[in-house]
């Protein structure tokens, strides 16, 4: 078995209206090559679940600028100025969740948990319309699990079977998202042979990963540069 594919082959895995789970915090841990491929398709009306909508004209920001995103579910869009403007004009739907609630909801989506009760956001505007419940004397709100049609993951290394390890804080949302997509595409800096990754240290087991793509980006100083 070999899950490694050429990046252009993943275009056919997406369709208009899909809910896409995209790893990344800022641009760290974002599958930039996969997103570039998505730009080459004519799909549209995507719902994107991600902490933010990319940054500095890269990653999901590109996708948004191209008008492919109908709705964004995440925790921090304030830095995405164009997104804020689009939202004000009614051109973009936004669902805002606390960052920890977002992470947990995706984890539940991948783990067969339908929903959960969190303390975060109780009594705030973000709890409006949400069920509240007192458990052992403390107030909690109900949050539903989040799943996606396709999850686009960025990892440091994959073996050919799809076992993944990550690099520093580029791990962020990726391991949970890898569990919660019907189709999971992992973009990686390095592809190694099966057996090269230590079984104790694999973060995402291959069971979750459907396709592995070599990243075309590398880090040059303070930028991610397309270089391959």
């Amino acid at each position, binding site marked *: 078995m070999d899950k490694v594919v050429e990046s252009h082959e993943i275009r056919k895995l997406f369709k208009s209206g899909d809910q896409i789970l995209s790893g990344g915090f800022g641009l760290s841990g974002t599958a930039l090559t996969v997103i570039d491929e998505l730009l080459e398709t004519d799909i549209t009306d995507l719902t994107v679940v991600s902490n933010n909508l990319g940054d500095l004209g890269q990653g999901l920001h590109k996708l948004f600028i191209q008008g492919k995103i109908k709705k964004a579910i995440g925790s921090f869009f304030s830095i995405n100025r164009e997104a804020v403007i689009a939202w004000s004009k009614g051109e973009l739907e936004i669902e805002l969740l*606390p960052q920890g609630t977002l992470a947990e909801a995706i984890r539940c989506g991948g783990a067969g948990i339908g929903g959960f009760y969190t303390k975060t*956001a109780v009594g705030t505007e*973000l709890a409006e319309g949400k069920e509240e419940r007192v458990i052992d004397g403390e107030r909690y709100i109900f949050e539903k699990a989040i799943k996606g049609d396709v999850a686009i993951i960025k990892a440091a290394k994959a073996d050919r079977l799809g076992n993944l390890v990550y690099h520093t804080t580029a791990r962020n949302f990726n391991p949970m998202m890898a569990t919660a997509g019907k189709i999971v595409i992992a973009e990686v800096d390095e592809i190694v042979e099966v057996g090269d990754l230590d079984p104790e240290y694999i973060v995402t087991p291959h069971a979750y990963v459907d396709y592995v793509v070599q990243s075309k980006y590398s880090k040059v100083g303070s930028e991610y540069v397309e270089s391959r």
Partner: protein
Amino acid sequence: MLSQDKRHVIAKRIAEELMDGQIVNLGIGIPTLVSEYLEDKEVFLQTENGLLGMGPLATEENLDIDLINAGKEPVTYLKSASFFNSADSFGLIRGGHVDVAVLGILQVDINGEIANWAVPNQPILGVGGAMDLVTGAQKVIVAATLFAKDGTSKLVNKLTYKTSGIRRVELFVSDYAVFKFTEEGPRVVEMLEPISIEELSEKVGFQLEYLNSPVEVN
């Protein structure tokens, strides 16, 4: 005092509150400056995007743009560090395993409830980890200049900005004074400016009281 100096006064005073061995999360803004005043205290900085044991900001020499703090600035990590995913990171926060969160605020009311995520009259499209930290940390210290640019007090009777959660914070370190929130309301622990509590009460708009006997400013 210049605005920048005030921020450092606040940060330095907060650093005094931190103790060896504590797990601490520093928010964006003034809280970030606290790390400059930790001296030889063994405090472990957590950043919600998945790192415990954050070191100083990265320099041009050791820059790795994958390795960032919650403010998206490139950072370094200490040898005691560990990396984890966002769900586990917020498990740490929400589960009560962060000893102290130091957070910026827009307002804090007399009960210690804070507003720190939604800027008034602007689209509210970012919350990040603010509510998780307010809810989950064992102790929350808030940091801000006492007065906004237009002169209004950030210590208020009742929040007019959107609340960050029902949890009441423990301490408010401002440029003028340090406030502790008690059952009876905010109490001045220490004055940081050479100003009487009466003068400060007048500026804030309601009567302030000392927690204990007044502490003189050096």
